[in-house]
């Protein structure tokens, strides 16, 4: 056997390691890189388009476009015109938060049930059902919300107000309960539950089986293993799913348009009628908007775009943070 010398007494020759990729590899590399860059480019171009079209509004209105709560005028010469999207921005956030608060516990429970309590065949069926539910067009959810959910949810809202009316969130200034953020948020909750469930289940399914069997071998029953092993392990997935759901809820248009009484006012009494979000406002006003107002709607679109992007980036940050912690 040959004995290797130490580094000092052999001349160490550095050699360049060159790998020439075969043509097909380089071609494939080119295709996927192009695909990735194109989607990024399209995203950037959308942002640029919205910003350029709405730029005049940002210039004319300044910060009051975000903080103002009046939407008046057509921009014709001599006519006082003010555009401020604060009520709809707040509405977007309120509706989405109601949705996530309702959907999150249901989704986590559903994900745990599918992953840990169902027989394998039923599990397969439920998982495909979940994907199907995520693919239902939102107008269907909207119609269901309008015809089926809203009449019942109005009753629930009345009971909630009756019991918890002393709490500001459930207070109503007048007894009108239809088309409220509460009902809109419930429809959104049903819409986003599949995606949250699906993401959470995916992460739960990656719980190391070794850790689960360790829990059992130390006397832990199923719930204890879930509580102490699966749930902490899946935390990043739960948060990530919730944020994804939030992102979807923020931009939802048709379902809100159908279910909520779109009213241009800041409404923090979630059981009280009238609310709206930026997306539904754009859809509502677009048809009859003057040229100048269309610019304002595009500017509002830019704000929604930027806000949703910020939420998603924050979600990614949170997920990475908790990933690092659990690693």
């Amino acid at each position, binding site marked *: 056997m040959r004995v290797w010398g130490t580094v000092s007494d052999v001349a160490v020759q550095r050699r360049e390691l060159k790998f020439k990729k075969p043509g097909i590899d380089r071609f494939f590399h080119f295709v996927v890189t192009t695909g990735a860059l194109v989607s990024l480019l399209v995203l950037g171009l959308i942002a640029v388009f919205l910003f350029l079209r709405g730029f005049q509004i940002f210039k004319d209105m300044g910060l009051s476009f975000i903080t103002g709560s009046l939407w008046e005028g057509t921009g014709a010469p001599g006519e006082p015109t003010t555009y401020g999207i604060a009520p709809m921005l707040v509405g977007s956030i309120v509706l989405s938060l109601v949705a996530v608060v309702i959907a999150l516990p249901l989704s986590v429970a559903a994900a745990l049930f599918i992953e840990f309590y169902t027989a394998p065949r039923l599990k397969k069926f439920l998982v495909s059902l979940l994907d199907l539910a995520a693919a239902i067009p939102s107008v269907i959810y909207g119609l269901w919300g309008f015809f089926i959910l809203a009449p019942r949810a109005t009753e629930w809202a009345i009971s909630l107000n009756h019991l918890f009316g002393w709490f500001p969130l459930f207070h109503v200034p007048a007894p009108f309960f239809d088309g409220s953020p509460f009902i809109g948020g419930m429809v959104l909750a049903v819409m986003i539950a599949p995606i949250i469930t699906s993401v959470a289940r995916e992460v739960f399914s990656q719980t190391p089986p*070794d*850790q689960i*069997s*360790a*829990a*059992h*071998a*130390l*006397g*832990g*029953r199923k719930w*204890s293993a879930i509580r*102490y*092993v699966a749930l*902490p*392990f899946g935390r990043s997935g739960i948060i990530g799913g919730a944020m994804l759901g939030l992102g979807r809820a923020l931009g939802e248009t048709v379902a809100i348009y159908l279910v909520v009484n779109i009213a241009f006012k800041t409404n923090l009494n979630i059981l009280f009628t009238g609310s709206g979000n930026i997306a539904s406002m754009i859809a509502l006003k677009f048809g009859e908007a003057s040229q100048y107002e269309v610019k304002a709607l595009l500017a509002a679109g830019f704000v929604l775009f930027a806000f949703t992007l910020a939420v998603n980036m924050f979600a990614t940050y949170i997920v990475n943070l908790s990933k690092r*912690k*659990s*690693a």
Partner: protein
Amino acid sequence: MTLSLNGIVGRGEFERMLDISVADGEVLAITGPNGSGKSTVIHTIAGLIPLRSGKLQSDGTTWDEPATNTWIASENRTCAVVFQDIRLFAHMSVISNVAYGLRARGVRKDEALSRSETLLARVGLTSFGNRRPNDISGGERQRVALARALVLEPRVLLLDEPLSAVDAASRSGLRELLPELLSGFAGSTILVSHDPADVEALASATLQF
């Protein structure tokens, strides 16, 4: 006689006929090369894999007997395992890891914590309670795993290569600790090891695979 296993254990293609019994206070060492099914025996007794045929009994209670369809679930067996790959819960503090089994069996929180602290002291990790498993050394993790098993006061203690995942320096410390812990342990112990020195030091009986 507390623990007896008479039958065929197996995992996948692998099968092995076995007839062992371990009395109270006795330490049975199972030795043999890799892949000879040592861990399979441990996992079968712990109830993580079923017996192929035969009977597994502890203190007169049948844990696993395919012929009569008897099966006691893992969490209901009065045994505790120290796994070869340790398997601490990474997101929990050391003390929570040790207290886990007690909490899972419904022991009150303050009692579980104080018993866990006592055990941590016995394995020489008095001030380690609030640390995370990832922040301590391999030898210390192994001690936590021992404490986590012993705190349950099991009737059967299953040690799967308790010294193999540990560097040489920590190993000598554990070699001193283990006999001390085992001599104070009233139940039956099964020790899986491929190291003759460990077997020599710890076992009262040996089974060669």
